[in-house]
């Protein structure tokens, strides 16, 4: 047997001939709901956050290697493209963090009814966007202030 699911997909008609049981309907038959997007977005954000963390290792390893390597990394962090990449990393991290907290609440039995989940979804989006914007603006602001202080 290639796949154990085969055993469950094969059924018998009343006359004894074999038939393939219908599969459960796939995604396209359902009306779009925010909760289904937030669910898959959490998985995607987890993967993106992991990829960003792998790139983030460049920063700490360059700092360990010395000033020359570190200035190379600073070229990336000072570049608008690199900054956009880091903002995306921050967004993925913040959303995975927020959705993770929701999962921990659900696991403990809180906010797990259909009504509560649908109420919390837009709040999670708002918290994610707000926190990400505040973090990015704050970090960029601190970095600019620090480099200005050094220049003067």
């Amino acid at each position, binding site marked *: 047997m290639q*796949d154990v699911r085969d055993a469950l997909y094969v059924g018998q008609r009343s006359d004894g001939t074999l*038939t393939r049981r219908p599969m459960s309907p796939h995604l396209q038959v359902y009306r779009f709901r925010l909760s289904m997007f937030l669910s898959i977005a959490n998985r995607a954000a987890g993967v993106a956050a992991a990829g960003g963390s792998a790139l983030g290792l460049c920063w700490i390893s360059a*700092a360990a290697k010395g000033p020359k390597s570190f200035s190379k990394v600073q070229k990336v962090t000072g570049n608008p493209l690199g900054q956009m990449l880091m903002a995306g990393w921050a967004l993925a991290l913040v959303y995975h963090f927020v959705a993770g907290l929701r999962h921990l609440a659900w696991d403990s039995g809180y906010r797990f009814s259909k009504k509560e989940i649908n109420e919390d979804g837009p709040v999670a989006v708002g918290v994610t966007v707000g926190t990400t914007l505040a973090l990015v603006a704050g970090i960029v602001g601190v970095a600019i202030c620090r480099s200005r202080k050094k220049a003067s």
Partner: protein
Amino acid sequence: MSNPKKPHVTVMRSQLSRARGLGSGQAGVGHWWAERASAVALVPLSGWFVIQVFRLAGASQPEVAKWGARPFNTTMMLSLVILTFYHTQLGLQVIIDDYVHGKAHLPAGLLMKGIVFLLGLFGAVSVLKLALAGSSRSTIAAR
């Protein structure tokens, strides 16, 4: 699915009789708990790291080296790196379990574990090098 057009029975046993007598699944809920426990540990560690990013934004390499040489920062960074990549491995394993079937499942999981392990180790070695190189340099300067 081996042959989607022509239904056929390969095993003439019910699912219950196949499962009966095999005992538990062995691993049980260990993976699930490991995922939650590492997630809970990462909450304060991430909060600490965000504060450090504010402290280090726009910092030069000597400033970062000085920061990384403090034993407390080294401990927190090591915990953060190890738990981040441990949690990554657990999460990616679930994705592979969901989407990769058949013969590719085992090699895909092992490849992913190998890559994430090496990344995590690379991060840990970098944190340690930053910490130990920083402290030894300052002792040499003191002499």
